[in-house]
């Protein structure tokens, strides 16, 4: 009898100890991961893709705000019959372009795609995006450390969220 009750408290203590250590470890993770993200980082910008709102996504990705520019040419259809496949492209006459990103304002997550443009690659990208509903599409061009944008409204007749 004494032998069966004996080991229990200690084992429980050890387990509790292990659990609290594990919790501490998990709790620390987000804080240590956060500062590692910068605009020019080579890593996948996880946090930016999780932002629901466009302004937050831009902040998470670049840490600064953009100014509209007529040197950014966004090509998107007036009306997209199928929101699941909306052809969108952007080109710019700006110099020293380092990245181009696409945002769809009222999608569940605003940031759709972000492209890194190394030296020697032309600042022009075409792709296809999903759009949940009629909303603004914004192309952001990072050139010489500054952000420039172009926005266009695309009317969606059938949403891209299935169902």
């Amino acid at each position, binding site marked *: 009898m004494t032998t069966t009750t004996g080991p229990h408290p200690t084992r429980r203590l050890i387990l509790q100890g292990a659990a609290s250590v594990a919790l501490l470890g998990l709790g620390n993770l987000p804080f240590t991961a956060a500062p590692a993200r910068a605009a020019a980082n080579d890593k996948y910008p996880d946090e930016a893709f999780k932002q629901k709102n466009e302004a937050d996504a831009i902040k998470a990705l670049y840490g600064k705000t953009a100014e509209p520019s007529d040197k950014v040419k966004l090509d998107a259809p007036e009306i997209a019959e199928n929101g699941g*496949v909306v052809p969108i492209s952007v080109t710019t006459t700006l110099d020293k372009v380092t990245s181009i990103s696409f945002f769809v304002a009222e999608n569940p997550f605003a940031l759709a*795609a972000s492209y890194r443009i*190394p030296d*020697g*690659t032309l600042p022009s*990208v075409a792709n296809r995006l*999903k759009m949940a509903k009629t909303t603004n599409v914004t192309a952001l061009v990072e050139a010489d450390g500054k952000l420039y944008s172009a926005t266009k409204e695309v009317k969606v007749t059938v949403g891209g969220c*299935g*169902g």
Partner: protein
Amino acid sequence: MASSIRVRATSNGDITEVQALIQHPMDTGLVKDSKGEVIPAHFIQQLKFECNGKDVFVADWGTAVSKDPYVKFSFKGAKKGDELKISWTDNKGGSDTTTAKIA
């Protein structure tokens, strides 16, 4: 197995135009199937193009990129016959790689 990546890279003087089409479901994690169960998110996160040992284009994608994604871009500094290496990784750890000769 056939590659999930189809690429066409054509040289036009100094500029190489690249078009790529990838087969991938690009599930958002927000859509339900016919039984009402959520289809888990499954999408390409990063797509890389390398030529002559240098990254020429890197795409970071979220779930809002269409199913079977398409992308087009152009770069300088390559010539006909050079090899272009394309690779992607998705959020479930899946990946694929292929190479294409610039025509």
